[in-house]
């Protein structure tokens, strides 16, 4: 991970800032009259915008000359910062300054474009004052932008808070059933101001404050910045963000790091489907997305499909911080729903080796802009989303569908919503979004990574190889795997290279069975106890998993995507944790967990370890004896500008 420079703000030549400002001065009669006429006529939508460009004026209310001057300077400053479309949509706006605002409110707006009226707190005009922890002049600017945003939003040209696309981006997500409408906004983490979540109109006003006033807004909320810019007819300011998208990557051995993903390195996105199995919890499979990321130095293209070590998987999961999953808590939304970014290698291992479930990976037909949109959305979700997991209405299939829906506007129009991973797979294929033709030739599909077989798919074939070479008395795979490890060990010395390879895979199968038994033993031990009684080793592992799904907890201040200085702080915090959880510490964790096991389980695991070791030695011995050359491990390519995950 290389540190990135501070995100720079390169708003492309804001021509509208250099335009001549509208004349400021006393209320101009004609404009005022038109405004009033409009109010009488109830509808002003047909009036040409430019004739009515924003004109702020103070309603005479006993302000001293200094205050009048400060107000005029504020109007000029804010008016010049607004995008022209916004300015042009508003007409005469009268500002009333008052001393008797209630509570924490410092501004209010009334009316619509031609007869807008703002009421602002007079203290905002006192340059030496400090309100709500902010200098008065900064707060005055924010407040005025906020209230003008409300006026714009209510105008015919505005209407942002009623735009379904804005609601998608803001986090009032669609439910999988159209007629149920939208859920509440769960973008609670790293919000600039939680007030934005109260309702869409406030979301628009709060975000337009930062869009206009905070140079970092485009890099912190790139998707929204792009939306606002498009609505105002401006170039997308987020294009100027130099660094990649920060994502917390749960790498090997539980090692966490912030990767800066450059969308230019993502060649495609697949729907990654883990097949169901016989257990009720996994019957309908699991829905994920696979990011086909190119290795450093490889041009973006189909060749990147085999850069498996760089691919990452986006997986929504309920975070269960206990040894026992409770169906009731799952049905009633007591578990958080979290977005995890995991290495593909780890996901393939977890499903094909540990859970014995096959994976299918279907490319989605997305253009590069759509891929970028999806990645922006994923990053926003990882740092800000704090949703709840509901088995029936907000599970992994629904979350994955919402990510597709909110990240790629074209997909929002397609009938993809559903509540099962198999259903989503079917709809993606039927609508032509997913390309299922890659599965037509099973051998090619396996070779190119469109299919990853469950390890169990080959157990029988491997056992047949063993029986073909060695005179083992067992007749079935299960009989073989159920033997005590030392009874399998005696055959290792007689195996040829083919049989040794088969023995290796079977021994790994035996290891998996032993691990499952160890897990059940541990689970039984704490099933009835509360989480507090878990040994520290287990509790720490759960906490670690929790953190991987909610990186906002690490980030400290700031809103939206963390910027360079925040990423530096996060990495420092991760270094400390990785010393406890990283590769180096893994053996120690394993010993601690093993110590909790019954003696018989522990002995079995150790026996299998010894067998795996012996098979490895046997394979090396046979390879050398056959005159096979040792493998020369290629060195890394010279480091280029690598923005992306490490392998």
């Amino acid at each position, binding site marked *: 991970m290389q540190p990135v420079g501070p995100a720079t703000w390169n708003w492309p030549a804001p021509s509208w800032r250099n335009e001549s400002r509208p004349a400021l001065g006393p209320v101009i009669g004609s404009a005022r009259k038109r405004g009033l006429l409009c109010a009488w006529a109830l509808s002003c939508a047909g009036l040409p915008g430019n004739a009515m460009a924003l004109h702020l004026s103070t309603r005479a209310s006993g302000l001293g000359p200094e205050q009048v001057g400060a107000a005029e300077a504020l109007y000029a400053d804010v008016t010049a910062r607004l995008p022209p479309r916004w300015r042009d949509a508003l007409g005469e706006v009268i500002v009333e300054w008052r001393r008797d605002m209630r509570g924490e409110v410092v501004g209010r707006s009334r009316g619509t474009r031609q007869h807008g009226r703002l009421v602002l707190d007079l203290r905002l005009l006192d340059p030496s004052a400090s309100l709500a922890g902010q200098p008065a002049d900064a707060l005055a600017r924010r407040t005025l932008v906020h209230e003008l945003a409300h006026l714009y939003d209510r105008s015919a040209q505005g209407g942002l808070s009623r735009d379904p696309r804005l609601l998608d981006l803001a986090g009032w997500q669609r439910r999988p059933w159209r007629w149920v409408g939208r859920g509440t906004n769960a973008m609670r983490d790293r919000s600039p101001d939680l007030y934005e979540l109260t309702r869409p109109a406030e979301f628009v006003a709060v975000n337009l404050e930062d869009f206009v006033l905070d140079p970092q807004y485009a890099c912190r909320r790139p998707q929204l910045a792009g939306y606002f810019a498009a609505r105002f007819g401006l170039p997308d300011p987020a294009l100027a963000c130099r660094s990649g998208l920060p994502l917390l990557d749960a790498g090997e051995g539980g090692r966490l790091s912030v990767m800066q993903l450059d969308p230019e390195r993502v060649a495609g996105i697949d729907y990654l489907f883990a097949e169901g199995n016989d257990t*009720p*919890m*996994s*019957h*309908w499979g699991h*829905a994920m997305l696979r990011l086909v990321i190119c290795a450093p130095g490889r041009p973006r293209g189909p060749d990147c499909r*085999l850069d*498996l*070590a760089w691919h990452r998987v986006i997986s929504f*999961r*309920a975070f269960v911080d206990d*040894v026992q999953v409770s169906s009731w808590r*799952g049905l009633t939304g007591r578990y958080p729903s979290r977005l995890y970014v995991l290495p593909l290698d*780890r996901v393939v*291992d*977890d499903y094909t080796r*540990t859970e014995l479930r096959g994976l299918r990976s279907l490319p989605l037909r997305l253009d590069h802009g759509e891929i970028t949109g999806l990645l922006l959305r994923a990053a926003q979700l990882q740092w800000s989303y704090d949703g709840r997991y509901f*088995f*029936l209405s907000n*599970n*992994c299939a629904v979350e994955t569908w919402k990510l597709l829906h909110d990240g790629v506007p074209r997909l929002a129009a397609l009938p993809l919503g559903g509540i099962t991973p198999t259903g989503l797979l079917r709809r993606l294929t039927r609508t032509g979004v997913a390309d299922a033709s890659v599965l037509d030739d099973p051998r090619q599909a396996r070779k190119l*990574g469109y299919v*990853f077989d469950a*390890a169990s798919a*080959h157990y029988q074939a*491997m056992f047949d190889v063993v029986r073909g070479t060695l005179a083992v008395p067992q007749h079935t795979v299960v009989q073989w795997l159920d033997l005590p490890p030392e009874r399998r060990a005696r055959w290792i010395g007689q195996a040829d290279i*083919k*049989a*040794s*390879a*088969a023995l290796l895979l079977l021994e*790994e199968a035996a290891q*998996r069975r032993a*691990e499952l038994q*160890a*897990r059940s033993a541990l*689970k039984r031990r704490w099933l009835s106890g509360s989480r507090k009684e878990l040994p520290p080793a*287990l509790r720490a*592992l*759960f906490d*670690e*998993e929790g953190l991987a799904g909610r990186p906002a907890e690490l980030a400290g201040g700031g809103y939206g995507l963390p910027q360079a200085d925040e990423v530096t702080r996060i990495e420092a915090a991760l270094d400390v944790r990785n010393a406890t959880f990283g590769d180096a510490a893994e053996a120690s964790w*394993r010993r601690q*967990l093993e110590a909790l096991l019954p003696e018989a389980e522990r002995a079995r*695991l150790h026996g299998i*370890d010894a067998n795996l070791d012996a098979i*490895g030695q046997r*394979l*090396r011995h046979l*390879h050398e004896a*056959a005159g*096979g*050359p*040792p*493998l*020369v*491990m*290629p060195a*890394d390519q010279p480091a280029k500008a690598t923005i992306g995950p490490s*392998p």
Partner: protein
Amino acid sequence: MFRRLALLACLSLPLPVLAASFAGTTAGGLSASSGSTSAAAKVVRAARDDAAAYVASDGRIRGARLEAALRSLRESGDAARRASDMELARAILAQ
């Protein structure tokens, strides 16, 4: 009730945490001697099971991780470019 439970579809078990801890040896246990942590070394290590299935099945079972490792080896070594797939798969197994 079973049908409703069936929708637990994608509830992540907390136990994969445990599994991952126990499973530290599935891929790397035998190749701990390899001190190299280069990207290619990781690609090759991840291909071990695929290489085993390939060797044991006389080349009939050919997974993507093996494919990735073969490409990675050949991209950076003349010796590997001259070797057959089976020779490389055996060499990966002997790591």
